[in-house]
C-alpha cells in the first residue's frame, strides 16, 4: 500500500547524475502503519487548529493568518524524514503543520496568531510563525517576511555546519513564488558548488498570492531547475505524505553523506486564499477549488489507514475529538493571555552592554 504511493516521486533532470538520489537509491526506512497514523494525527491537529485560527480572524480576533490547509501532507511527510533534534529548519510563513510536527504546541502557535505575551518565537514582535525557537529546544528560524531571504541564510547555516564537521541537515522551505527571486538562484548555485548538507524544500501550490504558475515561469516543474546547478531535483506529489517522506529521506541521506544539496518540489494546493487579507474569488475560479478539495490528503490518508486496519471509527473519532479539545483549550488560554507591554521595547536592538544598547 505505502510503497505504491511513492510512485508519484519523479526525479528531475540532473547534469551531475552521480549525485542523483535514485542512483544512490538510499531512501529512508519504510514507514510503518503506526508512523502513518502518527502523521495522520498531526495532520488532523493542524487542520483543526488552522480552521480555528481562520475562524478567529473572520471574527476579528486574529490580525492575519496564512493557512496551511492543503499543505499538511507535504509538511508532515518532510519532517518525518528528518530529525527534529539534529536538523535545522528555515521555515516560511505557511508552516503550521511543520511547527506542530516539530513539537511546537497549539497554544504557543495561537499566542503568535493573537500576538500575545509569551509567544515563544519573537515575543509577538513579529507575525505569527516568525522569529526563532530557543535553540536548545529546536533549531527553527524564520524572522523575516521577505520571500526567499531565508534561502541564502539557510545555505550559510549549512556551510557553518560543514565547516565544523557537524552532521546535520538544514532544510530551507519556500514556495513556488520564491523560486523566481534572484536570491533563490544564488543560494542554490552556492550550495551545489560547495556540496552543502541542505534540502531546498519547495511547496509548490501553483500560486504566488494571485499570480498563477503560468505567469511565474515557462516550465512545467520547478524540480527541473536543479539541473541548472548540478544537483538532483525531485518532484513529488505533495498530497502524498509517504512520497514526500521518501523524497526528503533520500535527500537527507545525500546531505548527510557529503553529497550535497537536493531540490525537492512537493506539488500541493492552497485550499484557502493566500492569507486572511486576500480574496481569491477575484482571481481563482471556484471549480478549480472544488476539484482539488476532492484530493484532500487528510481523508485520503484516513482511507489508507482504514484499509490497512490501522484506523477504525472509534479511533478516528478519538483523534478528531482530542484535536478539537486541544485546540479549544489552547484558544481559551491564548485569549486569556495579555498583550505584551512595551517595557522591553528597546531590548535586543544591540547586544547587552554593547555600544548602542538602550536597554
Amino acid at each position, binding site marked *: 500500500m505505502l510503497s505504491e504511493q511513492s510512485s508519484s516521486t519523479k526525479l528531475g533532470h540532473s547534469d551531475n547524475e552521480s549525485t542523483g538520489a535514485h542512483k544512490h537509491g538510499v531512501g529512508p526506512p519504510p514507514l510503518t502503519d503506526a508512523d502513518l497514523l502518527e502523521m495522520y494525527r498531526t495532520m488532523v491537529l493542524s487542520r483543526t487548529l488552522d480552521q480555528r485560527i481562520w475562524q478567529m480572524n473572520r471574527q476579528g480576533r486574529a*490580525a*492575519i493568518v496564512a493557512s496551511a490547509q492543503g499543505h499538511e501532507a507535504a509538511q508532515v511527510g518532510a519532517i518525518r524524514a528528518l530529525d527534529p533534534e539534529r536538523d535545522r529548519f528555515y521555515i516560511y510563513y505557511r508552516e503550521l503543520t511543520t511547527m506542530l510536527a516539530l513539537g511546537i504546541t497549539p497554544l504557543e502557535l495561537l499566542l503568535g496568531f493573537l*500576538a*500575545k505575551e509569551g*509567544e515563544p518565537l*519573537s*515575543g*509577538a*514582535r*513579529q*507575525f505569527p510563525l*516568525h522569529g526563532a525557537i530557543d535553540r536548545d529546544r529546536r533549531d527553527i528560524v524564520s*524572522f*523575516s*517576511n*521577505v*520571500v*526567499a531571504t531565508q534561502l541564502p541564510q539557510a545555505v550559510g547555516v549549512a556551510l557553518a555546519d560543514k565547516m565544523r564537521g557537524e552532521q546535520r541537515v538544514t532544510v530551507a522551505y519556500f514556495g513556488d*513564488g*520564491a523560486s*523566481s*527571486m*534572484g*536570491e533563490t538562484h544564488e543560494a542554490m548555485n552556492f550550495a551545489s558548488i560547495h556540496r552543502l548538507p541542505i534540502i531546498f524544500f519547495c511547496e509548490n501550490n501553483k500560486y*504566488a*498570492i*494571485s*499570480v498563477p504558475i503560468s*505567469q*511565474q*515561469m515557462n516550465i512545467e516543474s520547478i524540480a527541473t531547475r536543479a539541473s541548472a546547478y548540478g544537483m538532483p531535483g525531485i518532484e513529488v506529489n505533495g498530497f502524498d505524505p509517504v512520497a514526500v517522506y521518501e523524497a526528503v529521506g533520500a535527500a537527507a541521506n545525500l546531505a548527510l553523506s557529503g553529497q550535497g544539496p537536493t531540490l525537492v518540489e512537493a506539488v500541493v494546493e492552497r485550499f484557502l486564499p493566500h492569507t486572511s*487579507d*486576500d480574496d481569491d474569488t*477575484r*482571481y481563482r475560479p471556484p471549480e478549480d477549488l472544488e476539484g482539488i478539495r476532492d484530493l484532500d490528503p487528510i481523508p485520503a490518508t484516513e482511507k489508507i489507514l482504514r484499509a490497512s486496519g490501522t484506523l477504525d471509527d472509534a479511533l478516528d473519532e478519538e483523534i478528531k475529538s482530542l484535536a478539537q479539545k486541544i485546540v479549544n483549550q489552547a484558544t481559551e488560554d491564548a485569549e486569556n493571555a495579555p*498583550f*505584551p*507591554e*512595551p517595557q522591553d*521595547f*528597546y531590548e535586543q*536592538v544591540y547586544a547587552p552592554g554593547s555600544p*548602542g544598547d*538602550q536597554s
Partner: protein
Amino acid sequence: MAEMTVIEAVREALREEMVRDPVVFTMGEDIGARGGVFLATEGLLDQFGPERVIDTPLAEAAIGGIALGAAVNGMRPVAEIEFGDFIWPAVNQIIGEAARVRYGTQGRRTAPLVLRVPYGGGVRGGLFHSQSIEVAFSHQPGLKVVAPATPYDAKGLLKSAIRDDDPVIFFEHKRTYRLVKGDVPEGDYTIPIGKADVKRTGSDLTVVSYGLVLHYCLEAAATLAAEGIDVEVIDLRTLRPLDTDTVLESVRKTSKAMVVHEDTKAGGIGGEIAAVIAEEVFEDLDAPVKRVAGPEVPAMPFSPLLEAEFMPSAEKIAAEMRELAAY
C-alpha cells in the same frame, strides 16, 4: 469634486494617465486580476488588458530593472513594489542604475519610470510590513521622491510623476489609503513635484512633516490652537528635491521649527531638514530645531501595544509642540 480616499485617488490618476498616453503601463506583483494587494490597480486589467497591466513573477530586482529598461526604450512604466519593505532587491536597479542613466549617458538616454511604493506602519504589519524607507532614496541625486498625504495631492502628484522625464519614487502611506478622505476634482490636474504645501498657516511655530503623520500634526495643531498656540504645518509632499524655500520662509516668520516623521530619527529626513534650517536661518531661530521621529529599534513590532509604542500620535506630537512653544 468628489470625496475620495487616497487609494481611489491613486487609481484614478493611474487610469486617467493610461487613457491619456499609450506608452504608460503598469507592472508588479498581483496588480492584474487581484487588482493589487491594496486594490490600487483594481479594474485596470479589464480596462487595458494584460499587455498594459502586467502581473510579474515575485522578483523585485526584475521589476525595477525591467521597468528601467522599458523606460529607457520609450515607455512610461508605473511599477508597483508590493510593500516598501520588499524594495531592497530593487535598489540596485533604482538607486544604482536608474538614478545614473541621464548623467552617465550625457542625456542620451533617460528613465521616465515611476515606482509606486506603499510604505509605513500603523497597520499591524510587524517588522516587515511597516517600514519607512524613503530616506534611502531621497539621498540619491538623479531620483525624485514624492510622498503625498492627501487624496488631492496623491492624484495630482502621481500624474506629475508619470509625466516627469526622470525616475520618480512615489511613496504612498498604507495607513492613509482608506483612512484619509478628501475632495478631488474630476478629471485632469497636476501638482508640481518639488513644491511643499502649507497645510495650515500659523505664526508661533513651524512644523514640517509628510505622509500619515502630517495628519497627526494637523490634529495636534488644532489641539494647540485651542490652547492659544498658533502652529504652521508644512506638508513637504516632495522629499527630493526638497522645497527648502517654503520651509525657510515659514521659519523666518515663526522662529521655531520642528520636523516630524514616522521613520526612525538618526539619519532620517528630519536631520536633513533640521540641518538646512540651522544652516540657512540660524539667526532667526529662537530655539533648537526639534525632531520628533520613530524610536531607534530595527522596525515596528506586530503586537498592538508595541506597535503603538513605535508610532507617533497626535498626543505625542502635541506634547512636543507645547515644549517647543514654551522654549
